[in-house]
Structures are given as structure tokens and as C-alpha cells.
């Protein structure tokens, strides 16, 4: 067995050599930290003293004694299962529509739709200005001028409204990498398939979509889904920049902001790692389910 591996390795050593730089980085910066946080999840670690093994205590505290974690979990799941799919479907439809445009126009449209993702961080001040809680805020000013409200609304402070606004902004920014993958994927489909489809009796564009377009771009769909899941589970920036950190009554708290609260404010790394492990497992699980579902497309 061992010999087999060695021989195999020798036979394809060039390939392994070419892979080596990436693999080293992957091992050191991705795999190793994941394993490390699984281990740290079972310890008390304040970054100065060496970690102390405390068994399942962190997980017990997480699920039984941390009310804020439950809010974070709820919000994150909301982002993952409501915002995520909406923006996924949205990405695809925008890509699909753009695909019919002439070449130049398509490039322009792609840039326009992708722009929010690129400028994301730098426009938070603009959003803050729009949702500013006094009468100088754009939204408040507009609504007061139209006579819809009388007193300014504290959009980003009122816990009832925070989440809605975060979702809107998140959606605006969400035509991200998956959108680009879809635009590319749509280009690669063989045109002759559509002609064959017409011959075989496809009646409308939706049938075309379901039976030809989607099955032909399953790899891109899976890639897009993976990216979307990662993005949805790790929503944090929007919440920190708009709702503040922490937000009123933790209304905008997500798993990642909660991890930051414990990791970089209280320096309780063990507890933060335990939370990270939970997020990681949730992502892996969702990925499996979604990939399974996507392979059913077109059947």
C-alpha cells in the first residue's frame, strides 16, 4: 500500500510539484487553522496563558447559557436561508437577462451589476447617511418632505427595523462572485443544443432554461451556491458598519459578529473557536444539501 503511494507519487511527480505551492498555502492557512480551532474549541485560551483543556464546557455554555448566541444564530440562519436564496436566484436571473444583450452592452451591464460588490466597504458611509437617524438623513428627509412621517425614524438603531435594512443592503451588494460565474457559464453553453431543443419540441424560454441552460451549467451553479453559502453565513461587515457593533439589543448580531465580540474584545479564544466550529459545520452541512439539490436540476 505504502509502496503504491510512493510509486504513484514518483510517476506523477511533476504534477505534485506544480501543485505544491498552492497545497502548502492551503495546508498552512486553511486546513491548519480549521483543525486548530476545533482543538481550541475544547479549551480556555486568553492568548497570554497557554490553553487549558475544559472539555465540552464551551459548547454547553454556547447552547444553554448564551442568550445572545441564539439571537445571532437566528439572524444568521435568516441571512442564510432567506437572503441567500433570494440573492442566488436574483444573480442568476440578472445574468440570464444580461446574456441576451449585445456584447458591449453586456460588458457594461456586468460591470454595473458587479460594482456594488467591489465598492461595498467604501459606500457604507453613504448608507449611513441615507439611514441617518435625524432629520438630516436622506430617507428621513424625503419621507418628512412627502409628509409620510412626522418625526425622524432611527432606522439603524430601532431593533425592529435594523434587520430589514441590513437585508436590503446585503441584497444590493450580493450580486457577487456567483453572478460573474453565471455570466461566464451562460457563455459556454453550446448554441447547437438550443437548436436541437427547438427540434425536440421546446415550446418556451422557461422550458429552454430548465431543460437545457441549467443542466449545462451545473458546475457554475454549484460554485455559485458554495460562494453564496459562505457569504451568507459570514455576514458581519454590513451589520458592524450600519447597525454598529454591537447593535441595539443585538438585533443585527450574526454568528461572525458574535465570534468577534468574544475573540477580539474579550480575548476568549476558546469560546470563539467553539462558535467558529459550529458555523463551519453549518456551512458544510448546507453545502452538502444544496449540492445534492442542484444535481436534481433539469430532471
Amino acid at each position: 500500500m505504502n509502496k503504491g503511494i510512493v510509486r504513484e507519487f514518483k510517476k506523477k511527480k511533476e504534477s505534485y510539484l506544480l501543485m505544491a505551492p498552492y497545497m502548502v498555502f492551503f495546508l498552512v492557512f486553511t486546513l491548519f487553522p480549521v483543525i486548530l480551532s476545533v482543538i481550541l474549541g475544547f479549551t480556555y485560551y486568553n492568548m497570554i496563558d497557554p490553553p487549558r483543556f475544559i472539555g465540552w464546557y464551551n459548547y454547553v455554555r454556547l447552547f444553554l447559557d448564551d442568550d445572545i448566541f441564539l439571537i445571532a444564530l437566528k439572524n444568521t440562519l435568516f441571512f442564510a436561508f432567506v437572503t441567500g436564496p433570494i440573492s442566488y436566484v436574483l444573480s442568476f436571473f440578472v445574468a440570464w437577462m444580461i446574456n441576451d444583450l449585445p456584447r458591449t452592452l453586456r460588458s457594461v451591464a456586468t460591470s454595473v451589476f458587479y460594482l456594488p460588490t467591489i465598492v461595498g466597504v467604501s459606500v457604507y458611509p453613504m448608507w449611513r447617511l441615507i439611514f441617518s437617524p435625524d432629520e438630516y438623513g436622506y430617507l428621513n428627509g424625503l419621507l418628512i418632505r412627502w409628509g409620510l412621517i412626522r418625526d425622524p425614524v432611527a432606522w439603524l438603531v430601532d431593533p425592529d427595523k435594523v434587520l430589514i435594512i441590513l437585508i436590503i443592503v446585503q441584497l444590493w451588494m450580493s450580486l457577487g462572485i456567483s453572478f460573474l460565474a453565471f455570466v461566464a457559464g451562460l457563455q459556454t453553453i453550446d448554441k447547437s443544443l438550443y437548436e436541437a431543443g427547438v427540434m425536440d419540441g421546446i415550446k418556451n424560454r422557461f422550458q429552454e432554461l430548465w431543460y437545457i441552460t441549467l443542466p449545462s451549467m451545473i458546475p457554475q451553479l454549484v460554485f455559485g451556491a458554495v460562494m453564496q453559502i459562505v457569504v451568507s453565513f459570514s455576514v458581519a461587515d454590513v451589520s458592524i458598519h450600519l447597525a454598529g457593533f454591537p447593535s441595539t439589543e443585538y438585533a443585527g448580531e450574526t454568528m461572525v459578529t458574535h465570534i468577534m465580540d468574544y475573540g477580539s474584545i474579550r480575548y476568549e479564544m476558546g469560546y470563539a473557536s467553539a462558535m467558529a466550529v459550529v458555523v463551519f459545520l453549518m456551512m458544510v452541512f448546507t453545502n452538502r444539501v444544496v449540492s445534492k439539490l442542484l444535481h436534481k436540476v433539469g430532471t
Partner: protein
Amino acid sequence: VGRKGIFVLTGACFSLFLAFSVYSIFTFSEQGPRFDKDFIYVNEERPETGILAEAKNAVKGINNDIRFHEIWEGRTKVIELKEGDTAEWEVEVPETGNYELSIGYYPLEGSGQDIEFLLALDGHFIEDDTRPFRLNRVWKDEQGPLKRHNGNDLRPKQLEAKLWLNQKLAEPDDLRGEPLRLELTKGKHRLFIHLLRESMILDYLHLSKVREPVEYAVYRSNAPKSAGFKEQDEFFKVVQAERPYLKSSSGLLPSADRTSPVTTPYHPVKIRMNTIGGSNWDVVGQWISWKFEVPETGWYKIGFRYRQNKSKGLFVSRTIYVDGNIPFLEMKHVRFPYGLSWQIKELGDETGKPYLFYLTKGSHEIKMQVTLGELADSVQNIQEIIYELNRIYLKIIMITGVTPDPYRDYDIDKSIPDLLSDFSNFSNRLKDEAARLDQITGQNNVGSRSLRILARQLDSFIDRPDTIPMRLKSFKTNMTGLADWLLNAKSQPLELDYLYFASPNAAAPQAEANFLEQAAHEIRAFAGSFLENYASFSGNAQDERSIEVWVGLGRDQAYVLRRLIEESFTPETGIDVHLNLVDNSLVVAVMAGKGPDISLLTKRGEAMNLAIRGALEPLDRFEGFEDLQTQYMPTAFVPYQYRGHTYAIPEEQEFFMMFYREDIFGNLGLEPPQTWEDVLRIAPVLQNNNMQIGLPYENLDAFQLLDRGMGTLNLFPTLLMQNGSAVYNADHTATRFDEPSAFQAFKQWTDFYRLYDFPLYKDDFNRFRTGEMPIVITSYKLYNRLVRAAPEIAGMWKMVPIPGVRNNDGTINRSVDATGTASIILKDASNKEDAWIFLKWWNRPEIQAQFARDLESEMGILGRRTPANLEAFRYTSWSRKEQAVLLEQWKAVREIPELPGGYYTSRNIDNAFRDVVFQGENPRETIYFWNKQINEEIRRKRYEFGVDE
């Protein structure tokens, strides 16, 4: 063929460029270091004509016995005046007229601040104590060649020139910087001086009749017709501007310019002190003087290589004195026009014909003083117009509010009589000013454009008064735009490379490098940038005794600190300092074991987070700590104490002050509030007039809370302490929010927003400036911003202590919390004794004071620091009156301890606050609920760090 040709051509160009690069890099060699001989400093002369009131004839002071010195530094029978001293003279004026007053004095060593005093003529004070007269100290560079560090020039140490001075008194804060004029009738007059700040030896007061300098033509024809009266030939002499004789402020330091290869001395990579001035030589009244020599008596012309790239489309002005006098009228306002690059200016008339100066053989002094010149009147008028327009804006706001209802007709022109006639009046004045400005500058410029925009808007207001409410916002924007331009116009920066003195026929030197020279310069600088570390402020060598110091500051501050260390610390102790600029990564670095020995200007939360985790060295075990402690306010060390030890030395304490607009309060007949009841009493009056009260409230940010601690976030801790409670109990095991007084304070605080509708989110500076919010409670740092950036309301506002709660004995409890930075020694420091020596040096009053002063002269009033060391605070640029006001509040500062888990306290106070203000929940239940959370966190953290077992 064509393609091949292009290849060959590109190749040729490339190799030519390469050859040129290599050539220019290797041909560079710096001229050897200059050696200038030291100046000989001489006293300024006693005047011979005019009315002299000699020191010895002073009538006895009012509150003191005047101290006579029989002889002092070469002058006899002089008197010493100390802070608070007064003295009076009687003078006999022979004829009625306008007189200028000059004073012969010798500044005694003090804090390095200018001397301030009040002047009374015949029993009437000429200005009140908010605008005292000033006599400046004069400064010189340390003599000898410049010190270098890693091959880079260091700025020369600034020393006070110990000389007898003779200074004409200038009107305080006058834009022109012109001398004060006293109208005196024939007969006896009394002159009275009350010294407010610093001390001096006084020789005489001197009155002389105002005499305007003659015009150039007269000057030229009046010159002595002696033998030396001829125009010299082929003479050209350069004086490097960065080597001045004297200057009026220690902030007028030489600077380094690396943008042009023509600037001398030149080095493409290393820092060479080669210019002076720039943005710190811009305040009216500041002057620099130089010495120069001419070989023969005769006529000479004078020129400068200068750069003025800050004041766009405008010119800056200087008054030029030769040997202490303005030689002729044209030298009163000499203009230096705007340009992107370096320029040559020869003093001359409009046609470019140079003015000739009559100079005798030997040494002379030339002095350049900042003045607003011909702009002064315009600036003054525009300032007034803006202020008046702001008042009208305020009147309108009082009727409509900041966001007028679009569906309502306010009939503003009827509610405010004279509104339209005022508008048309101002519109005309604005247009006049615009025309005048165009005429002065010779071109259409930003200022006149802003003026015309505003005038046009006023005209359209007159046409359609009903649209005024809806267009208020743009009206305000236009006014702010104009005020911003005003600020720009008031600053008069000028950078000089050298001055030259030449015979009339000498050609003007080259102003800027040509294309090839510039290209060679850029290539050298680019090549050199690979070898040079500009961010390192490390010491010279790997000395045996060295300490690593981190500061979380900007580059400017680090330079100042570096200079202080070079000048004072290393020579004194022989300890080498490695100074590094590090921002926001102290905790992480320490955790990784890569921390420094010392960190300065550490935020208190950061410091205590390290202390709690055992990463800091307790300082109370070092010798001399107790002496140091007495130089601070009693509670200043409280935040840095944990489990019986002190871990840091406070550097700055920031706390709330109250600012109010005297003019608006006067109009409404209100008094500044002393207690919170007073605040609620004036609130309806202000609110009826659509004006607001600004209380401090900062949005929550967990990272920020972690770093800066509890203080100055909002009013709650302040109100809590004023109600006789405190945040934490004596053992620091829990909060005291379960006490009735805490609930009282919490309700009082939330009621301000819930019941009285005070604004939560606001821009203190702008709303205070426009008057929408004539009363603001915030950190004293607003003071600097108002002084620097709101000229149109100068003198119309005041900073006073915050309102408090009246005690039974009638005194007012104005307790307030604070925030600030501190210096710490890390546990892992390699040499703790040396580190402590450094810390002791750094927190010495004179070093703290000098740091604050140097910083202010480098960065202007916005860079003003307020050291926590009370001794050092006395030496800062705050005037005595401002110091007294600040101290009154400062004495009421009660610092809050930083506990493990303390970040959770301020976070949950804010949570409770939002629940009550936004959700309208019951204050009592809310504060108790969140209090439970706080105490749980404190308990958990105490357990974690082993405080409670």
C-alpha cells in the same frame, strides 16, 4: 521594415533612458557640508527720540512692591515684573496726536509662552482680559552645523535668544498686524501695565509719533549723496533662508523640501534642511529675520526664491523691515503670488523694475513679518457680513425650524420686518466686496465667486420671498462655503529657500529645474527610495543601553518626540531610544511576545486590558513614583489601578465643558445654566425658537469602548456622580446601579431625550457655529476647532464648566468623568530601570510642556495638547483665563476605574438607554435588567482572572 524600425527605435529610446538613469544616479555627489559661522547676537537699541518713560520712574505698583535691579545684562535701573504684577507711569505728552507705544524688555525664562499683559491709559483698559496684549519672546536656532541621524539632517534645537528687545505694541488679533495707535492730547497721561502671564525685566516704555514710511521715489531721492552713492557691479550674494538670525516663535523651524533639485542644499534621498516657513509661517504677526553683509556702500536689489502653493488664486503678504524700519511705503505689503512650483521674486514695482535699497558697507538685518496686507479690509468686511447673515438665518430658523414644512406659507418677509431690505443691502455689499477682491487680486477668484453666488441667492430671495424656507439649506451651504474661503484667505503661508542681495545689473537666478535636471532628480530619488527607511525613527547604533518605544501617533508628532529625545533624553542619560510608529496593534503584538519596552499615548482600555492579564509592570514600585503622583489631579491615576497597583502614568485627561453663544443668549435674555434645572428652564425658550441643546452622546462601538474606557461617551456617569452615587462599588465587585440615586440619574438622563426631545445625533461644531444649537456640552477639544475654523463667531461664545446639581450648602456639584491616554512599561521589557528613567523623563512637566508647545507650533491650534500633569498644563498655550476655567471643571473630574469586563458596563448602559428612548420601556425595569447582565459579566471576568476564587 516598419515593424522592425519601431523595435529599433523603442530599443534605442529604452537604452538611452537606461544610460541616462545610470548616469544620473552615479554622477550625483553632494556638496560638502556647509559651515556657517555663528551669529553674534546684539541687544536691540534704545530709542533716542520720542517720549521715554523709564522703568525707574514707575509709580509704585498697586498690588506689589516693584523690584528694582541696579544693573541687569548691561542696563541700569530696571524693574522686574512677575505674573500678576502691576506698574504705572506718568508721561508728559508735548503735543496732541497719534502715538505708537513700544516697550524695551528682557523676557525672563519661563514656560516659553509669550508675555501677556493688560494696558490701561488714564485708568481705562484698552482691551479686556480675553484679548491681552502680547510681547513675544525671540528664538534662535542652536548654532553650529546641523546634527545628523542616519545621514538625515535633524531640525536644530530652538533656544530663546537672551537679549534686550524693543517691540512696538500691536493691536491684539488685528488682521493687519499694525501697531496700536494711541490718541493722546497734550499734557500728562498715565500708563498702567498689568502683567497676566510670564515675567520680564522692563527698561522703558516709549511713545513716538506715528510716522508713515515715504514712497519709493522719495526714498530714492532722499538718500545721502555721499561718496558711496553708486550702483554696484557684478555682486550677488545668497543667504540661506533656513538659517535665520532670529524669529518670533519656536515653531518657525527649518523644513526639508525634496521636490526640486534647485533647492539648496540638495540631496535626492536624504533629508536636508533647506527651506523655512510653509504652513507654519502663516499667522499674522509672525516674523523671521536674517543677517547679511554687503561689501561696499551703495544701492542693492533684494530677491527671494519662494513657493506659495497653498493659497490658491490669491497672494500672501509680508511686511519687510531693513535694520528695524520699513524703508519705504511699498515694503509695507509685499505680495507673493500663487504658483505651483518654486518662483523667484525680486522686490520691485509693477513693471518688474527692481527697487534699489541703500545699504552701507557691513552687516544688515532684514525681517519679514506676516501681514494680511490689502486683503485685511476685505476679510474684515466679509467676516462681518457672514456674521450678520448668520443672524438673519437664525431669525428665520426661529420661525421655520431647520426642516420647514413645505406645505406651509410662513410669510417670512412679514414676520421679519426689514428682511428684504436687509437682504438687498447685504447683496450690494457682497457685490462690492467681490468687485474689490477681483480688483486686488487682478483676477476672478474663488472668493469673489463665492461672494457673487451668495449675492445672487439673496437677490432671488428678494424676488420670491415665499421660497426662502425651502432654500435655507443651500443658503447655509453658501455661507459656510464663504466662511471656509475666509479661513483660507486668512492664512498666509510662504516657504523660502533663500534670499539674495545683488547689484542692480545682476541677472535673476534660476527658479526651477529644467526638464532634464528634474528627470535626473526623480530617477535618483526613485532609486534611493529602495534603500531608505522613512518610517524608522530608531536610534543611532546598537548601543548597550537601549529601549524600544512605541507611539500610536502621526508622523509629525513622532518627529517632535524624536527631536525631544535627541535633544534632551539621550545626552542626559546615555540611553538610546528606538522609536516606532505603531497604531492599534499593541495588544496583539504583546500577546505574540513582540511588544515594545514602553508604549506612550496608550489608550486607557488598551493599557488596562494588558494590565489585567499581567502583561504590564506595576509602576508604584519604582522610586520617584510618589513624587510624580503629586503633580496630577487626585483621581487621575484611578483608571490605571488594579488590585492595589498602578500600571500607567496619565498623559492626557479629556472631559466635558459647556460651550454657549453669548450673542444668542443675550438676545433671548437667557443666562448660561448652572444646574440641570436651569437647563430645563431655558430649554422651552430655545425650543420655541427652533433652537436645540446639545448634550454629549456617542454611538456605541464595541472596539472603541474596549480602547477608550467609559469616560466622555454620554452623560450618565456624570449625572450619576452628581447625584452622589458612582459607577462601581468600593470593592470593584459590582455596579451601584441598583441604588435609588442611580435610577434617579438614569431617568434624568433618558428624560432629556424622551420627554424634552434633545437631539441625539448632531454635528456639534456646525450647529454651534450657525447658532442652531447655541449651547453644547462636549469635550474641551471643541474649543480648538472653534478658534481655528469658525472665525465669524470669534468672541461671541464662551467655554464654561458644565451644569451640575446644587448641594444643600449652595455649592454646585459639577462632577464629571474623563478619558485619556497614558504611558506604560511592559512586563517583558528588557531593562526596566532604564524604561522607568525614560518614563520619568517623558512625564516631567517641562518635557510634557515642550512636547505640547512644539506640537502646537507644528500643527497649529488643532494640535493643541492638554497634559494631565498639572505643572505642565500651566506651561501650555491656554491663556491664564482659559486655564482657570478648565481647572475649575478639572477639579471636579472623578475618574472611573477600569475593571475586568468594564467594556460591558458602558455597552449595557447604552442598551438600557436605547430600550427606554427608542422602545419607550420603563426606565426602572430596564436599568435593573441590564445591570444584572453587567454584574454577571464582571463576576465571570473576575473569576476568570482569579480575583475571586
